[in-house]
């Protein structure tokens, strides 16, 4: 991914707007950088790169360009430095913003984009992972299936690709819904965005009212 940029040093292009893009070698670096920046309070979002930066299965981070120096310093200090920094000057693609939740008897199936995770509501066990076409999907499934939502590794920690990113979104929603269903917080910290945090403390009856449903979501 981004092999044509691999040997380049971080560089800056004069800004034409107030937002910039951080370009990384792997999706896993994008996920790590997004977490670091959000922890530090920066307003960032993960988006699809414009066509001129696209080589395959890519993600970039949009960030406030004025903060470039501090952002790059933070990420470089955490060994997550970007390959490139470019200003936003062409169309960006938004990640798909729909989550589908389907109840199958004692199981919940949550789909984000092309990835699905199915959880036993009674035990919190992940019983299946399906969909997706990136090479880490079978690996992620092997790591997660037959483990509880508490114990399973988060896709963001072991995956690399956009499919892993989509699975993370489905996984987060599964944690939220199962937590609401069981009336307790799972031990796994649930990285809720402000939008998603509305589900905190959700009652089962409320949760039932959205199943099956399509729920708006923006990572």
């Amino acid at each position, binding site marked *: 991914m981004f092999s044509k940029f691999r040997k380049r040093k971080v560089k800056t292009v004069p800004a034409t707007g107030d937002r910039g893009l951080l370009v990384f070698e792997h999706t896993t670096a994008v996920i790590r950088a997004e977490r670091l920046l959000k922890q530090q309070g920066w307003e960032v979002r993960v988006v699809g790169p414009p066509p001129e930066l696209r080589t*395959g299965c890519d993600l970039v981070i949009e960030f406030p360009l004025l903060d470039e120096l501090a952002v790059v310093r933070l990420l470089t200090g955490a060994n997550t430095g970007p390959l490139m920094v470019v200003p936003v000057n062409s169309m960006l693609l938004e990640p798909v913003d729909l989550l589908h939740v389907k109840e199958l008897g004692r199981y919940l199936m949550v*789909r984000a984009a092309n990835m699905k995770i199915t959880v036993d509501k009674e035990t919190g066990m992940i019983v299946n992972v399906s969909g997706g*076409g*990136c090479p880490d999907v079978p690996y992620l499934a092997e790591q997660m*299936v037959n483990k509880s939502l508490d114990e399973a590794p988060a896709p963001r920690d072991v995956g690399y690709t956009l499919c892993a990113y989509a699975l993370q979104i489905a996984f987060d929603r599964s944690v939220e819904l199962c937590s609401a269903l069981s009336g307790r917080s799972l031990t796994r910290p649930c990285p809720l965005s402000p939008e998603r945090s509305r589900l905190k403390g959700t009652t089962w009856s409320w949760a039932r009212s959205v199943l099956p449903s399509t729920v708006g979501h923006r990572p």
Partner: protein
Amino acid sequence: MVLGKKCIAINRGTPAMIAAAAVTLEYKGLPQPVAYLVGDIGDGDGSRRLYDYLTGHIGDVPLSTLTLHYFQPDVGLFKRLLSVIDSLPGRPSLIADAGFMYVAKMSGHAPSFDLFTPDAGELAYLADELAPHPFYTRGFILHDENQIPDLIERAYRHNNAATYLLVKGATDFIADKNGVMSRVDSPREEAMEAIGGTGDTLTGIVSALIESGLDTETASIQAARVNRLAGSLARPTPATQVYEIIRHIPQALNRVLTEKE
């Protein structure tokens, strides 16, 4: 699946595809498939090695059907490999699923393929001329099964589909540039959607049936029936693992192909 001294679990992904193809070929009395495999946990290193190996060696073994599956999408390496495949004498039937279908569409070379096997979400991605990955399919292009004929038409309009499409889902659709040719919707098991690897088994079965000499449309219809029947025979729940379905493929083949013949 035994690979040298290693035992590989047939849970989903490429092992499930190979296992389904192998049992189908065995049923048809044909030789077992040749597989080129590499490990890749998503960083793309293994995929790059496989692109390189195939680019250098794809002509070493005579091929009549070639199915490409979980690859890290890389447009440059894909184009290099496809140009070598295109230059082979007696070009094989080309089938793509998973990451290789994604990169075929990304690169603008989807029409070079004989068959794609997307699910509804992946079909929406094929229909979206701008999306570089299913994750970026624009929201107005719905992943709704009711929209599938429209999505098929849109995918062909933008040259983002193979000669044939086998769209897997609650109903399986077989289509070409003129639209939907057949629908297969029974037996229907709702749990199948949750089971990882059921799309991979469908790809394996259809690949083997094409290799057996069936035309792509007939092979797609029969593969859809066999996959659904094998699933039903396994009496699935959302927790069923795909190897339980693969075990029933020979019985399903026997029923479906006997009916047809």
